[in-house]
């Protein structure tokens, strides 16, 4: 089926979409969080469920039209209300993306700490032309995102759902090469920082009595 989207580049949409067992389980948990009659509040978490299921099934995390229709039906909403939400948020990919989604934070703290270098490393190593594009081998898609809330460990590179922190050019190159080899390095600070504590270890409260 050819996409009947009124905007954007045309690409094939799947002809059908139905939640698999894992998604159904997740949906039940999510929908229960909201009071009766307010199920429509679950639309954003459910769109994530669709996106993850697509990742599991096709290797590309995106939200097809039929997936949005499935969410609408599950929550008793008009499909257009789901389309509005899904297209509003950058977190939902409205077209197929690469196997890994490299999300470079370009907001001020990350940018001051060298997010341009991270982006350059992505372009060089992942062979992605620029933001919003996918590498020719279909492995990587690169996006610029707004603040990821990890400013203390800036700059941040989010790969799919994982944060890689304290990045620079070299560590980004290493990370992408590892991903290409099929490895999945542990998320978190790449310079060994403990959560968001100071680099190299604690600087205050060193003389806690009794320790």
């Amino acid at each position: 089926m050819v996409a009947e989207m009124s905007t954007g580049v045309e690409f094939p949409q799947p002809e059908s979409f139905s939640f698999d067992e894992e998604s159904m389980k997740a949906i039940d948990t999510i929908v229960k969080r909201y009071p009766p009659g307010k199920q429509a509040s679950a639309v954003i978490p459910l769109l994530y469920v669709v996106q993850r299921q697509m990742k599991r099934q096709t290797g590309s995390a995106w939200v097809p039209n039929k997936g949005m229709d499935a969410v609408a039906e599950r929550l008793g909403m008009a499909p257009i209300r789901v389309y509005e939400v899904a297209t509003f948020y950058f977190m939902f990919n409205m077209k197929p993306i690469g196997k890994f989604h490299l999300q470079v934070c370009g907001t001020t703290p990350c940018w001051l700490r060298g997010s341009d270098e991270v982006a350059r490393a992505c372009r060089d190593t992942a062979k992605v032309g620029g933001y919003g594009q996918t590498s020719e081998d279909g492995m990587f898609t690169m996006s610029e995102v707004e603040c990821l809330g990890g400013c203390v460990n800036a700059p941040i590179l989010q790969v799919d759902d994982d944060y890689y922190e304290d990045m620079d050019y070299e560590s980004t190159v290493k990370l992408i090469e590892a991903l290409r080899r099929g490895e999945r390095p542990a998320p978190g600070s790449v310079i060994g920082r403990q959560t968001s504590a100071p680099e190299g270890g604690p600087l205050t409260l060193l003389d806690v009595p009794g320790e």
Partner: protein
Amino acid sequence: MAKVTVDGIEVEVPNGVSVLQACEAAGKEIPRFCYHERLSVAGNCRMCLVEVEKAPKPIASCAYPVADGMKVFTDSPMVRNGRRGVMEFLLINHPLDCPICDQGGECDLQDQAMAFGGDASRYREEKRAVKDKYLGPLVKTIMNRCIQCTRCVRFATEVAGVPELGATNRGENMEIGTYVEKALTTELSGNLIDICPVGALTSRPYAYVTRPWELRKTDSVDVLDATGTNIRVDARAGEVLRILPRTNDDVNEEWMADRGRFAFDGLKRRRLDRPWVRKNGKLHPASWAEAFTAIAAGIKGRKIGAVAGELVDAEAAVALRDLMAALGSNHLECRTDGAAIDASRRDFYTFNTGIAGIEEADALLIIGSNPRLDSPVINARIRKRVATGGIPVGFIGPRGLNLTYAQDWLGEGGAVLNALIGGQHRFNEVLRAAKRPMLILGRGALARPDGASVLAAAWQVAAQNGMLQPDWHGFNLLHHFGGQVAPLDLGFTTGIPADIGAVWLLGAEPVGVPDGAFVIFQGHHGEAGAARADVILPGAAYTEKDATWVNTEGRVQRGRLAVYPPGEAREDWKILRAASEVLGVRLPYDSLAGVRARLAEANPVLAGPGFEPHGCTDTAGPAGDAGGVSEAAFLPPVANYWQADPISRASATMAECARTYLPQAAE
């Protein structure tokens, strides 16, 4: 109540109204784009800025509630500056294509830019471009012009009840549309054109046709459904170019159904524009004199009867009745669809609750009608009541219809009606608990062999469930066309005997006309009636005569002549008056005033407003055996909404709608 001072004028307004409404109460006009009286408040255009004393910034008056003692300024330097700024931003992405825009001359943005905008543009960068959307055969879109007021989104969701329009993407990339391309599935889509304050949504059939200031505007009444929608007919050079609704809160608010709005191009096609007489089995063009002579010869010595069609005005009907009486005949019929209507009392065949009365009802039972297709505007009123009041709606008819509001499907046929009479049905409880219950009986439900029983049974349900109170009348019959009630008021129910020798068809189908009968067809569109006719008399359509129309409520409204009938066609009562002369039974009126005086004499109700809210003190029901309802299912009476009458069947626009929405029905 809150006391508010607007520009020094003190007004008292109810608590909770918006500052904008308070300003209007003080007679100050506030510019606006997104605000619309009949839609929810969005507050996103910011055009309605006013200054409020002690407020640090200008406020959007449409979304700001009044407070006691508030001092509002609608024309201070701060307000003028604010509005100029808003206007400048709105115009940043709005193309400067007014000369080729169909909204030009009646565009809110154009008018308000003149009144409140700056005198020159400071914007030198690129404007954004948005791809046009397809919304169906009636609404044309030029999305570059959209200022994203979201009125259309709110109309579709709230009034039309089809949440199919939305604003997708965000910021600079925000677009109004359906996202997945599809034609809007509503019979009220023309109203999107009216509520769009700019030229983004315009009429497709009216595209590039004319300019509003070139049109002659005539107030009239729509007859293509039984709502009695108040309309304005815009014509130029003897041609109807568009039809718009007028505001009447008692009838159509400010909405209009698509068939009434767009079917008018059928008035120019397949018209009968000269008399015809059948000679040797073939119809030949004739003069009026020849036609009348042929009639005089044809009906001589024959038993004559008359049938009024579904688009007949009261003047023509009374003239026809008088002509028949003068010829010694009392064989009159108007129920060509076979509906077993009992016209012995007016409340047996009208919408007694009134369209505005729907808003007071607290329970509704719909029997054998699809109000969405029978009368989209009345359906919107029901939807409004359901949406605001959450009233229960029981529905007897085909399963799975989308009426645009939640309904409790009780069953599809007479069995449910019988159970309701027994009082044992679960919906009886709902009706008994209600203080102002009402039922809507579709005219289509009476057009079946047990129609009289259905009518009697529905009345009995109304009587038994508290719908008939001294100050509340909850029994309603929903007709299909604007010309169906007036003939009932004039007693066109005596029937045509099977041995009739001559029949005068006034815009009616030749139903029940025996072979060999002499048939006179008088009307504006020739279909089966004209094909069967021995003499054809060309009549005037509803836009071409000064006429009285009675809607389903029984409301008497006047339509006015907007254009003259084509060719030799004439107003119908004049044709009958002229014919009476030749037939030697001259009717005693020569002017419209004369006919109307006769009309008032024939049935005084036709001289007055015709409808006023009323109760029911006499609960005796119509003739018919309430127990005789068969179990047969109620079928949807209007299979093809778009082509339901001779005018819309001749319309190219309606044909395209039918092709789009009813692919299986298209030829």
